[in-house]
């Protein structure tokens, strides 16, 4: 086997990204869609940090990964609040059945 380098990390993050997209497209439950989104954000973060190490760009990539994690936290809080409201209004959270903006 060849030595682990930049390409290995990029391939891992590509596979993780595709799995996240698959989760977003196929799952009905809104919380599962959120989990797919978390996978996608993690894949992006692996890319940032891999290039920070192998591209000799200093610590800028790691700072950007930190910002992505903060954004993911904010996104999860807001999205969970919206999901709770959806459940209160429609008493389910299946994204293929919720097609109205109001009751």
């Amino acid at each position, binding site marked *: 086997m060849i030595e682990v380098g930049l390409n290995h990390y990029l391939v891992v993050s590509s596979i993780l990204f595709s799995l996240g997209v698959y989760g977003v*497209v196929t799952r009905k439950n809104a919380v599962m869609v959120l989990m797919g989104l978390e996978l996608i954000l993690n894949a992006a973060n692996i890319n940032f940090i891999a290039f*920070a190490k192998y591209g000799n760009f200093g610590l800028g990539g790691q700072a950007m990964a930190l910002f992505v994690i903060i954004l993911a936290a904010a996104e999860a809080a807001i999205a969970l609040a919206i999901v709770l409201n959806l459940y209160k209004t429609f008493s389910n959270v299946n994204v293929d059945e919720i097609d109205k903006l109001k009751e």
Partner: protein
Amino acid sequence: MSIYDVIFYLFAILTIGSGYLVVTSKNIVHSAFYLLFTLFGVAGLYVLLAADFIAIVQLMVYVGGILILLLFGVMLTNKVTDVKIRTGTIHIIPAVIGTGLLMGVIVSMMLRTNWKSEPGELPFTTTYGLGRILLTDYVLVFELLAMLLLIALIGAASIARRDNE
């Protein structure tokens, strides 16, 4: 094959395998627990990439915060007492074809591109350097994100508690 490579393949298999189980598992609580292992594997990859501070932040924010939040979401929006906690899937075959094509394109693009690759000298611990650039080069982004987190907190509370209309 050095010990670094062995650890990399272990964490990569942990990440990809549990990531696959996250998106295919029928029980949504199982998905949440597999997501725990995925996030842990990603944190291990960060450690291998000399990003120790980011790895700890990943463990604290994702595993300690976001995953718990997702579990709250699961518990509050499903009837846990009966077996309704299972969740369905739609469009399996087009999704497999589509994301398979997407993955092939991205992986081949990643492997064919001649990336600028010169292993730089990252410091042994990154906390000092990260703190410096967060408060010098990226101070505007840092403050804006602090504001954004505050707004998100207030917004989430006001959206979720809108019950007396």
